């Protein structure tokens, strides 16, 4: 059923593939977090963009990431831009999650009670100081765990990159499987890797959440 020597044999290959997975996750998340912030801020700063941006966000969130990955991968060359599979895939993942992240930021700002702005005006605080000292410190605590959850979700979607032959963890496991006709060990190891990473991340997010909440409630 389970071959330990085979497991040991494939472990180094899978480990180096896991590095690609982690790289894709981190780069994808940086794109998602920054682009999401830009979308949210543009929405606040330029009111007429609110509607088109919300339609765009809805569009991205309503269609499968896999299709978006394929689309970007195949459509870039049409415009003369040749991207390798990793770059195209990571951009697609980043774009997809930027849509989710922008909603997180938006909810964060929306949740600040009007009274906070009004109190700041009553104290005659300049607008920038209001933003920096009053609003931002209250926005961050709920945002961090929400972004953390999307980081984990994004991480779990990186196996989709195997569909455009990026040599991340899942693709590597599949290749090992088709070469050796043994799928049990590689596939199970991939599953375990994701499970452990997700559980650890969830625990970290919980701790972070508690720390942040303690600060604001003081």
């Amino acid at each position: 059923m389970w071959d330990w020597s085979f497991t040991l044999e494939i472990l180094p290959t899978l480990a180096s593939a896991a590095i690609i997975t982690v790289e894709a996750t981190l780069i994808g998340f940086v794109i998602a977090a920054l682009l999401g912030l830009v979308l949210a801020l543009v929405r606040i700063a330029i009111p007429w963009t609110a509607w088109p941006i919300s339609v765009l966000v809805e569009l991205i969130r309503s269609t499968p990431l896999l299709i978006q990955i394929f689309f970007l991968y195949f459509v870039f060359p049409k415009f003369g831009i040749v991207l390798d599979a990793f770059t195209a895939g990571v951009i697609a993942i980043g774009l997809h999650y930027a849509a989710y992240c922008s909603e997180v930021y938006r909810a964060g700002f929306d949740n600040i009670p009007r009274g906070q702005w009004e109190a700041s005006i009553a104290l005659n605080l300049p607008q920038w100081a209001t933003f920096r000292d009053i609003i931002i410190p209250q926005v961050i605590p709920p945002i961090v765990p929400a972004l953390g959850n999307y980081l984990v979700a994004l991480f779990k979607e990186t196996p989709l990159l195997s569909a455009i032959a990026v040599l991340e963890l899942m693709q590597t496991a599949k290749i090992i499987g088709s070469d050796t006709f043994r799928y049990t060990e590689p596939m199970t190891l991939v599953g375990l890797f994701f499970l452990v990473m997700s559980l650890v991340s969830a625990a970290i997010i919980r701790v972070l959440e508690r720390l942040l909440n303690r600060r604001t409630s003081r």
Partner: protein
Amino acid sequence: MGIRTLVGMLVVALAVIGLLATQTSYSLFLPGLLEGALLTIEIALLGSVLAVIMGVLAALARLYGPAPLRWVATVYVEIFRGTSALVQLFWLFFVLPQFGILMDAFTVAVLALGLNVGAYGSEVVRGAILAVAPGQWEASIALNMSRAQMLRRIILPQAFIAMIPPWGNLFIELLKSTALVSLITLTDLAFKAQQMNQSTLKTVPIFTLVLLIYLAMSLVITIGMRFLEQRASAGLSRGRAA
């Protein structure tokens, strides 16, 4: 987004599909894609039914089951939430046969997606049950109801309303996940798209149509769930504004 905007988006999406269908460069692909969409819908529907069943069962087991059942449910939820749908799909598709369990790709698809979303669903169900006011339990005890009667008649009907919006999101996640089944040989909408793309290299028309079809299906789910929510909470909210 308001329900009007959503309906408006659906109308626009369908109109654009119709408009594109008048052009040969697009209409060429439409029959094949719609055929794939049919399989997508089939898998999404069956997967959703399984997800709801698993979600409710796992939630009840975790809340009220005896210890062993509670552990089983917790392990199920953690495993299926902790790994991703594609990992689960591939594991069921490639590994189970090595243990002599043979299922066709369609069954694997429904099973993997249903179990995956069911795990998230169990958290939704659990949260909704726990969110019912404690006074409702107390009133049920004061009326001497049995545990099963309280759950069935008092708690679940109230929790049901709170569950509708998050389940709507889960159904959309499930619909989007159906694209993964193209990777285990099923000829769904995503599979057709790849296949046509490979043979014709007409990426833009093909994927524009595919994205629009997925968008339309998602919107139908969102709009349907909004209506369900309105109808279910009709009694609760009637006169509340007054």
